[in-house]
């Protein structure tokens, strides 16, 4: 057996860093179907999982991959899959099953430009609303957006920890550029990596209700074979897990899967500020576009324009309060993303006319350049 945590400095791509982050988080099961630009995650972890006693399965398609990931998690494994646009669409059905059965797992989407087959080898960030609402029904989701290989490593660990803590599938919404970018990735000593595990049932087996919320609103999870009652269904169910076809039962079930997120926003939402303290104009961005934004902030500052960046590390749940506060004190908010306005809609909703909301968007296939952003900063600041 080889170590799961490859402590040291590496010059690797974001995709490889993601796979190593999964192993460092204790992932022992990966089911997937190769797809550009996420293939290298599957390729790398297919070699590594057997070295650490884990299992890799290439499934017949992404529908089955997502189902296998949920099954492995129900049996007690930390499990994951990785895909891109078309595969992400196929995973939507069973993503909903994971949400309603409160099954922890991690789903990585290394975004490419769509719709449909789109531009397989070129990046975009145009699945952001699909991440939020792509599966039918009402739910809350957690989605993280890494902007470097180092973050692909750490946010994969964070995604596993969040999925275990709150018992739900957690999405990593990466992009082709970050997935294929090579940079230094520092992997710390295994003892320095904090890992979380799902809450587990204690006490009398005959009184156990598999969906009765415990601390944090999260129900302890029994694994198949533990001896506790296990009932897994996509139908609306009560705390015992039994189907219950009433409006009252549905309200209660939806509350269970949404409250655990809504009540823990402070623990879930991760943001990074750059030169924002004295800023007049704020960029709001994530993933690779946040890196273009960082360069644009520096270039604007050189010209004497007070620009800053709020980087969304957690994109969902959306940081509504933080955007409201920014809108109340700034001249303008500029969302920078590789789509034609998805997170921009959320920024508009939260700023609600308090500050003008601008968009620097592109449908994908390239990256947004610092120059594109700088022009919009000048417009928002009233320089030109």
């Amino acid at each position, binding site marked *: 057996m080889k170590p799961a945590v490859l402590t040291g400095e590496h*010059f690797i791509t974001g995709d490889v860093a993601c796979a190593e982050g999964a192993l460092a988080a204790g992932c022992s099961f990966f089911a997937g179907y190769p797809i550009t*630009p996420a293939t290298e995650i599957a390729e790398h972890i297919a070699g590594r999982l057997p070295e650490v006693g884990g299992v890799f399965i290439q499934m017949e398609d992404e529908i089955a991959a997502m189902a296998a990931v949920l099954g492995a998690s129900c049996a007690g494994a930390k499990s994951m899959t990785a895909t891109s646009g078309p595969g992400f669409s196929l995973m939507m059905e069973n993503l909903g099953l994971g949400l309603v059965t409160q099954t922890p797992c991690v789903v990585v989407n290394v975004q490419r430009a769509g719709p449909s087959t789109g531009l397989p*080898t070129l990046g975009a960030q145009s699945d952001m609303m699909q991440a939020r609402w792509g599966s039918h029904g009402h739910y809350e989701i957690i989605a993280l957006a890494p902007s470097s290989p180092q973050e692909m490593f750490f946010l994969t660990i964070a995604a596993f920890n969040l999925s275990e803590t709150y018992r739900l599938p957690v999405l990593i919404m990466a992009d082709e550029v970050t997935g294929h970018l090579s940079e230094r990735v520092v992997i710390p000593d295994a003892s320095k990596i904090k890992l979380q595990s799902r809450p587990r049932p204690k006490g009398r087996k005959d009184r156990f209700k598999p969906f009765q919320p415990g601390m944090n609103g999260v129900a302890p999870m029994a694994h198949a074979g533990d001896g506790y009652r296990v009932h897994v269904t996509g139908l609306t169910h009560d705390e015992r897990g039994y189907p219950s076809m009433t409006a009252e039962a549905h309200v209660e079930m939806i509350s269970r899967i949404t409250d655990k997120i809504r009540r823990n926003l402070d623990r879930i939402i991760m943001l990074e500020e750059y030169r924002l303290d004295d800023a007049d104009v704020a960029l709001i961005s994530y993933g690779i576009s946040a*890196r273009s934004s960082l*360069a644009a902030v520096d270039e604007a500052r050189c010209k004497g324009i007070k620009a800053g960046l709020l980087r969304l590390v957690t994109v969902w749940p959306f940081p509504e309060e933080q955007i409201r506060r920014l809108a109340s004190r700034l001249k303008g908010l500029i969302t920078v993303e590789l789509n034609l306005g998805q997170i921009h809609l959320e920024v508009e909703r939260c700023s609600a006319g308090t500050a003008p909301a601008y968009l620097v968007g592109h449908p994908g296939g390239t*990256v947004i350049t*610092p120059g594109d952003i700088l022009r919009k900063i000048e417009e928002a600041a009233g320089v030109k």
Partner: protein
Amino acid sequence: MDRNSSAKSKLEILITGFGGQGIVLAGQVLGMAASLIDHKESTLTQSYGPEARGGACSAQVIIADSTIHFPYVRNPDILVCMSQAGYDKYARQLNQDSIVLYDQDMVRTPDISADCFPIPATRIAEELGRKMMANIVILGFVTAVTGAASVEAMIKSVCDSVPSGTEDANTAAFNKGYEFGMAVLKARRKKAAAAKGGES
């Protein structure tokens, strides 16, 4: 004129050629040497897709003393060309201070104001018995002429990146390119000194 670029706080390097010439590997070797061994910041972005398998292919490396935000080359300080298509595609991005290093048997560089450094890299690799080491020869040349990464870092990075069993052959290829580069620099200095002597 001092061509050693290691003093510059940020270097943008574009390596171009055909898919299959080891262009991406060359970028990987250079980026890894700068990042892990010279302890600078570096990023590598690369061609991905059908062009990486026969068509025009590129690797973009940025090496800097501080954090690199935008990981794409906007104004190449150094353009390395292993094919004519790679040169034709990127020559227009060159500026007055750019330098071009190219395989002289593969690339013509007409009407160019940038400083040019030719090397018969593929021929040298063939003489060493392996044409596919031309990318390592040109890395040695780049190291000598530009100082983008240290020699020690580059040799270690080459050895860590090539198939095991080929380390010695690749180190020899690197050294050939490096010596060729040092000889070119020496000849230039001599010429410059002679010109200066002629003036006075």
